[in-house]
């Protein structure tokens, strides 16, 4: 449109103004709501993080103003100087990153393998398997986590019963201590040179049960987009099954799986359910992750100011992770396309 609004007659001009305003009218309801219940609290959180903010500062009867303490909350967190047991900030962050990373690797590998198996030509009952393998996804996570907590119970859990059953088949007595593992509480590490508690392995088992099916769905979609003649061409060149997988399947899977793996990393990094409902951070807070620790700081300890500083740390960690993964995605994109 070449005519400026000034040159237009009056009614057209107001119509134009109204047209310019219209996008904002469509956005208004969402942004009013988000402004009040999302953006304002987030800013308020930053303010809280610089204050010694506790229950007495926001109780409904006679609240007192919170004293400004600068960066004290941040420093106390970084130096692990909080008045709560078993809190070590560097260990918490490292465990959180390792937890997310190890899960994603296991889920992607397992999901791709199952997708490849299900995609084999001529497999019988494929539809039934596809339908049933999705079951872990449809069950709400809180139920998955609480059920697995009971499954890993030392005396009455299904996992130990199952181990006893398998042990019975090969002639090991059911009272062997190997079949009475205290999965979620045992304090000494199962593998001597790896500083991960037994509860971590229980958690990754439960989370793999929960996490691989969606990876298989994504991988299946990618597998079906591979043109069949590529495999035929590879066969004609005398490629083995492994060579076909490496040179045809993997390059086609990568553009679909990588974004999903990155997304899975962020989701698992913030996965509240398993550490909270399954292990409650046991043993000695070693399976705690950042989000569960932040929740406990506020919910159980009423350290609202500290929890706010904790959330700010969490925000910057996530930002850093996003920047790194974006670079990763870009670096491999040129290869994939």
């Amino acid at each position, binding site marked *: 449109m070449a005519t400026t609004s000034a040159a237009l007659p009056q009614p057209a001009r107001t119509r134009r103004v109204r047209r310019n305003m219209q996008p904002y009218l469509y956005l208004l309801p969402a942004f009013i709501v988000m402004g009040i219940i999302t953006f304002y609290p987030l800013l308020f959180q930053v303010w809280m993080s610089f204050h010694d903010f506790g229950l007495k500062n926001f109780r409904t009867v006679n609240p007192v103003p919170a004293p400004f303490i600068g960066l004290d909350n941040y420093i106390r967190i970084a130096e692990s100087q909080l008045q709560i047991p078993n809190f070590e900030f560097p260990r918490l962050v490292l465990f959180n990153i390792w937890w997310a990373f190890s899960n994603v690797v296991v889920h992607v590998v397992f999901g791709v393998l199952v997708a490849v198996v299900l995609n084999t*030509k001529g497999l019988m009952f494929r539809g039934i398997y596809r339908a049933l393998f999705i079951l872990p996804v449809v069950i709400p996570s809180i*139920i998955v986590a*609480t059920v697995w*907590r009971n499954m890993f119970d030392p005396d*009455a859990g299904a996992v130990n019963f199952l181990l006893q059953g398998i042990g019975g088949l090969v002639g090991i007595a059911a009272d062997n201590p190997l079949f009475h593992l205290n999965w979620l509480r045992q304090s000494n590490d199962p593998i001597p040179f790896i500083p991960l508690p037994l509860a971590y392995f229980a958690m990754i088992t439960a989370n793999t049960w929960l996490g691989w099916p969606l990876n298989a769905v994504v991988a299946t979609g990618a597998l079906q987009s591979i043109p069949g003649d590529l495999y035929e061409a590879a066969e004609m060149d005398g490629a083995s099954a492994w060579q076909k997988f490496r040179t045809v399947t993997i390059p086609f899977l990568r553009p679909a799986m990588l974004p999903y793996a990155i997304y899975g990393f962020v*989701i698992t990094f913030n996965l509240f359910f398993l550490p909270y409902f399954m292990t409650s951070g046991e043993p000695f807070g070693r399976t705690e992750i950042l989000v569960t620790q932040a929740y406990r700081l*506020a919910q159980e300890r009423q350290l609202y100011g500290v929890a706010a500083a904790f959330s700010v740390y969490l925000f910057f960690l996530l930002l850093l992770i996003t920047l790194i993964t974006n670079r990763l995605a870009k670096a491999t994109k040129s290869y994939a396309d």
Partner: protein
Amino acid sequence: MTTIATPRRMPFVSRAFARARGGDERRMPVGRQIVMQVICIFILLTVLFPIIWIFSMSIDPRNISRPDALNLIPQGASLQAYAKVLDHPTNNPISFLGLMANSLKIALASSVIAVAIGVTAAYAFSRLRFRGRESLMIAILGVLMLPSVAVIIPLYVFINQFKIDFAGLSFNLRASLVGVSLAVISGQLPFAIWNLKGYLDTIPKDLEEAAAVDGASQNQIFLRVVLPLAVPAVAVTAFLGFLGGWTEYLTAFMFIGGNPNDWTLSIALNSMVGGFARTTTWSEFAAFAILFALPVSVVFFFFQRYLVGGLAVGGVKG
């Protein structure tokens, strides 16, 4: 899905058989087929193991506090654990239906409101050009990335100061289902906007352009053309939101944990495991978990084709 090139005339039985065979022209050698079936059945068993376990526990009639072995169908299986949890799931007087009503209120209120105000914003982001579009979208994506814990702690402090006096009712906004619903909306709205925008982006613009040529206003285009086309995405987003509200724990426990009459299903469920649950028998826990999961899981299972896509791109927020 492999394309099943079955002729229409083929009788049902042989068609089902063709499907079972995988429907491919190429057959698999029998030995390989057996190996593959063993692998698939093993995976199936690992998938089903916890589900079968919880089910057989729920029909255990012995009223013992802990199971003592793996029983597929316990002797004298009965539904008495279901009857018990329907009537009186926790030590508090509230019944299962009462808990369900509270969860339902949160789920319905939050998903309906988030989708209703999310869809207009999604439309603006998808179709309209305006100043600040990019940065507003980044703000929404940024909030979407944040775990809900990061928002609810300040939100808790913020809404604790509102005392509501309305129609003879007087309550603290924070300690009410309304407060929980607000917190849930805060988590769901960015997802609703983003998910709906993603869907709207895939709808071709031809229809809207045709409507614009016919002189339809922006509002008419939105209400009469775009909205009807977006119904599937609205339904999917609303269901995923409903699922989030139905199972919400963090805010519910933080905001109303002190008042058992407002408890939701998820708070009650967590009070039935671990250290809180010395008096709860596991068959009751199992029956409760099944009653809690069943309504949403059945819907999810039958509509998974439409839902898994949305879930794979960001439906769950921890």
